[in-house]
Every structure is written in C-alpha cells, then in structure tokens.
C-alpha cells in the first residue's frame, strides 16, 4: 500500500518526468509518448483523490505537504482534465497554421510546456505552505502564458500578453501580503508560513492587511471581478485543450489557495470579516458576468464569461462557509470542470467546421452536426444549471447555505443573479443547438473523440448529481469546513 505522502509526491513528479521524456525522445514519438504518459499521470491523481476522501478526518498536514479532501478533490479534477486535454491536443495542433515556435519544434515544445503546466497545477493543491503555493501559482503563469499565445497569431499574442502582465502584477500584490504575514512571524523562514503554523503565528495587527492584499492579488489570477480583464481573452484565444485546463483546473486551484488563506487567517482577523471579502468578490463576479451571458457571444468567449460566473459562485459558497454551502462548493468545482472542459473541447471541431465561430455566435449546430451540437448542448445545459445538472444541485445548496449562514440578503442576491444567468445561458443553449443553421456542417477530425468525451461527461455529470444529494451532512463536508489548520 502506497502512503498518501508518497502518492502526493508521485502525482506532480510523473508529469514533470514526462517533460524530460518529451524533450529527449525522437520527434516522431513525441505525440505518442505524450498521449501514453497521460494515462498513468491521471491514474495517480485519481488514486490520490480517492485516498484523500477515504479518510476525510485524517488529512496529511505537514510544513510542505497537505493531502486533505479539498486538495484531493482538486487533484482528481486536474488529473482527469489534464488527461483529456492531452488526448484532444493533437487535433488542434494539426489544424493550426501558425505557432510561436518553428514547425519542426512545435509539438515538442507544446507538449513539454503543457506537461510542465500540468505538473505545477497538480502540485498547487498539495502545497502545505503559503509561500510554496504562491511560488507554484507564479510558475503556472509563465507556463500557461506561453500556451495561451502558442498559436502566435496577433490575437493570441494580445491575450497572452494581457494575461502575463495582469496576473504577474496581481501575484506581486499577493506576495506583498505574504511579506506582511512574514513580518508578523517571530522567527521567520518559509516553514513559518505553513498552513498549520500560520494561524498560530500571524499577528492580528497586520493579518487583515495581509489577507486583503493576498486576496486582491490572487483575485487577478482567479479571474474574480473587477480584476478579470485577462480571462475572456485568454480563454478564447488559447488552444481549446489549454482553455479547458485554465478554466476547469487553474482557476479553482488558485481559488483553493485563497480558500486556505481564509481558513487559516479567519481565527486571527475574524471569520465573519474573512468570509465577507469572499462574498463580495463572488457577488461582484456574478454581477459582472451576467450581462455578458445575455449577449450573443462567440462560443469560447461565452464559456469564458461563464467561468467568471462560476468562480463567483464558488467564492460565494466558500464565503457562506455553512455545511450546505460547502457541500455545494465541492459539487460545483467538479461539475463545472466536467461541463466547461467538454465545452472547450467542442470548440476545436467547431472552429474547424465554422471558422467564423471565433468571431460570432454559433447557431443551429444540433441539426447540422449532431455530435458537435449535442456536446455543446450538454456543456451549456450543465453550465446553465438546467436539471438534472449537478450545478443545479450545487447552486441550490450554496443559496440555501447562504441562508443557513445568516446572510439572507447575499443569498437572495445570489439566487436572483443565478436566475438571470440561467436565462442568458438557456437562450444561448437554444440558439446554439436549435437556432437557424447558416450552412451544412461537415464532419471533421476529432468528432469521434469529442463524442466519446461527451458520453463520459454525461455519465459523470449524472453520477455527480446523484452523489450531490447524499453529500450534505457527510464526513467530507465536515473535513472541508475544518480545512488544514
């Protein structure tokens, strides 16, 4: 039996090893190696997720390493989305006419950077230390910016540049928050910034300033309003597989760092104050996202604004912090990842059959191409929260959790904004699948893989919706509420 600590080291180490492999193998084997190696990486991640959830009351909490329920959940999600992203990447690469690097080195560089990004992403939820987590989040910026701009087109360069500059400045502000925390720690050193030690050391004088700086900085990376400007551009211009990783894995992984910061510092600055900051970010993100969900937007930009909405919903759930809300958060993270990743994977074939879909809304796809239309319909229906989507259950849990937490006004505002968001996405769903068809949609490469991914996604979404009903009151939710401190 492998211990959880060993497994936790193996999970990010496996994709890191693949980076070396991809760099060293002959060019014709790069794609094959990348695809084959994705399977053990994902298997290790899912094994760790299962192990973390088998003993929710007994997390591994060290100065450098944490294996708890929230981290395990995220690792499982990142593992599965990473696997699917690797599998669908080659079709998009083959379709691309330009790239940031020369054609001979294109696949090698792409897979090396993708695996580096995946390895760092897998390490973020396992970091037992605020300083270490910041460093890993900062490292994701460099790797993912390269992937966002990988096509090398003017639009991709614009998106990658905005992402790099805005998130780097944001992370600078977050680091200032960490320095303020370090100033309050008597003996200093990185070990003193471990999640378990931090709440004991942090002084109440600087802790609130540190918390605000930390969250304001991380918000730029999570894509919370009002510092979300990079998000629609990066999500829409990155290769579809990378967009899926950004939305389904990166945003919630950084959000977990914000959540752990809140849980760790709440005893010092006051739980109500700490949670109110998250509720404010959540409501602002929902309010900013809704008007865009009502507009006719190109497919990937619509999904990007939906990410802004869903990161807001998760922030609200964490901010409400009641058992019902936290159960909703767990379901929402997983459900959003499945539905959003499927939506982005559909963008590859969509752009192949309808190149104008990069600039204008896609319509009538269910009639023109059933596989593509159904995949996009499943994604959009799930993201809208149309029953039996697990996101319907999670949103109900989060709103109920808001009332349970004694925040009736915030819960009511959340319910109203979610209803408006539902109407916007429901309209987009009708237009995308059943609207007027512009022309016949031909079959293209990648539809078989998309159909398989859509089938798996439907099964997973339904299973999650069923599990969501059982989740409130379970040990898993108690563990989420306890955190790592």
């Amino acid at each position, binding site marked *: 039996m492998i211990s959880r600590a060993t497994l936790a080291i193996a999970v990010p180490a496996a994709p890191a090893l693949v980076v070396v492999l991809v760099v060293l193998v002959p060019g014709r084997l790069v794609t094959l190696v990348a695809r084959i190696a994705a399977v053990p990486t994902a298997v290790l991640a899912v094994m760790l997720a299962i192990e973390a959830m088998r003993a929710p009351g007994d997390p591994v909490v060290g100065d450098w390493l944490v294996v708890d329920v929230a981290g395990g959940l995220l690792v499982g999600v990142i593992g599965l989305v990473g696997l699917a992203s690797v599998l669908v990447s080659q079709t998009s690469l083959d379709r691309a006419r330009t790239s940031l690097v020369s054609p001979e080195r294109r696949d090698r560089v792409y897979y090396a950077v993708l695996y580096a990004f995946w390895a760092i992403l897998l390490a973020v939820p396992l970091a037992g230390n605020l300083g270490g987590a910041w*460093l890993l989040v900062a490292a994701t910026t460099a790797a993912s910016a390269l992937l966002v701009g990988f096509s090398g087109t003017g639009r991709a*360069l614009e998106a990658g*540049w905005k992402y*790099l500059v805005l998130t780097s400045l944001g992370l600078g502000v977050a680091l200032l928050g960490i320095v303020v925390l370090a100033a309050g720690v008597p003996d200093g050193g990185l070990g003193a910034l471990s999640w378990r030690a931090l709440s004991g050391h942090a002084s109440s004088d600087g802790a609130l300033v540190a918390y605000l700086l930390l969250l304001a900085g991380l918000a730029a990376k999570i894509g919370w309003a009002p510092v979300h400007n990079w998000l629609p551009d990066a999500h829409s211009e990155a290769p579809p597989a990378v967009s899926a990783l950004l939305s389904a894995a990166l945003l919630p992984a950084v959000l977990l760092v914000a959540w752990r910061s809140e849980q760790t510092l709440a005893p010092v600055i006051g739980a109500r104050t700490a949670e109110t900051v998250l509720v404010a970010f959540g409501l602002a993100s929902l309010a900013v996202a809704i008007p865009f969900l009502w507009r006719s*937007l190109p497919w990937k930009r619509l999904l990007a604004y939906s990410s802004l909405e869903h990161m807001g919903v998760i922030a609200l759930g964490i901010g409400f912090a009641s058992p019902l809300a936290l159960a909703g958060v767990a379901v929402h993270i997983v459900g959003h990842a499945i539905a959003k990743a499927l939506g982005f994977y559909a963008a590859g074939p969509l752009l192949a059959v309808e190149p104008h879909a990069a600039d204008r809304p896609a319509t009538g796809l269910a009639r023109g191409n059933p596989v593509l239309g159904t995949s996009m319909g499943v994604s959009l229906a799930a993201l809208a929260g149309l029953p039996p989507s697990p996101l319907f259950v999670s949103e109900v849990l989060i709103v109920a959790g808001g009332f349970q937490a004694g925040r009736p006004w915030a819960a009511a505002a959340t319910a109203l904004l979610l209803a408006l968001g539902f109407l916007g996405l429901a309209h987009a769903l009708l237009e995308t699948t059943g609207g007027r068809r512009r022309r016949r949609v031909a079959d293209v490469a990648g539809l078989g893989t998309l159909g398989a991914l859509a089938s798996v996604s439907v099964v997973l979404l339904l299973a999650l919706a069923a599990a969501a009903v059982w989740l409130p009151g379970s040990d898993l939710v108690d563990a989420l509420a306890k955190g790592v401190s």
Partner: protein
Amino acid sequence: MSGGLVWTLVALGLAVVVVRRRSVAVALVTVQALALTAFALHDAADTDELVAAGALGLRALLLASLLLVLVARTRETRPVRARISPLARGGAAIAFALALTWLVPEIGLASRDAERAVLALVAFGIATAALRRATLFQILGIVLVENGLALSALELPGGASLAIELGVALDLLLVALVASVFHERIFAEFGAGDTAALRTLRD
C-alpha cells in the same frame, strides 16, 4: 537601511515611470537592484542572508543582460510614445503612491520609511505597466514591483528572508523570459513593441 538609500531607490523607481528610452529604464531598475544587493551583502549576518543577497544580485545581472539583449534585437526607428506626458505620468504615479501609503497601515517592516518606499515602488510598478504603451516598459513595471518586494524582504524585522528573495528571483526570471518571447514576437508581428496594437479583443 538608511533613509537616504531608501529614498534613492524610490527616486530611481519614479524615474522609470517618466524616462523615454528603454535602455535608460533598464539601467535604472538594474542600479536599483544592485543597490539592494549591496545593502543586503553589507547587512548579511549569516549564510542564509548571504545567499539571499547573492540571489538578488544574480537576478539583477541576468535580468539586465536579458533586457539589454531584447533592446538590441528589437531596435525601434522611433520610441513608442506613451499616451500621457512624462509630467502627468509622474504626477499620477506619485498620487497613486501617496494614496497607497495613506490607505495601508503599518505592515511591520523595520521602519515606516521602508514601508512607504515598498508601497511607492509597488505603486510605480503598477503605474508604469498601466501608463506606458511599450511592451518593454510593461515588463519593467513588473520588475519595479518585484524590486519593491525584494526591499520588503530585506527590511523584515528578523533580517532578510532567503525564501522570499529566492522566490522573487525565480519568478521574475521566468516571467521575464516568457515576456521576452512575447515582446520579440509582438515586435515581429506589428513592427513595434507597442501595446496599442493589442486592442482587438473586445466585447
């Protein structure tokens, strides 16, 4: 750290906001980082603090080399003009820095002067990135913020933090490397490292 040195660092930061030439701005942030290195070496009490100072100095030199190579490889026929005049940029940056020092209470560094200087450098960095159109100046905005953070790590009550200095150095080098790839590609695509060309993505 003496008040004179602290305010010299702030003055160098403000100069980056207003100067016109990219090479001058690179020299200014490098002098700033080397001044921080000299102070860190002078005050180093143990091996950790010596290593922290070494990391700071090494990243200053590596960054200067990288940025100067970038300047040389992307020669501009005429400098990218900022939308706002130098005087207005300087005024806006100073106003932002004053607002930040007024808003943020004591953060626990060795002196209030050092705290104000850190906040001023962060403000100048953000102002540089927001007010300058040239891509290289936006990279320098990030460098200014990180120099401010390096100063804060040196002014921690318990002495320099090796972890923070190493983290800042590593992060900054990675970001600068990726930014340099983008800068060169933007230059090749649009004929200038000008973010005014990067305004097509809107809703």
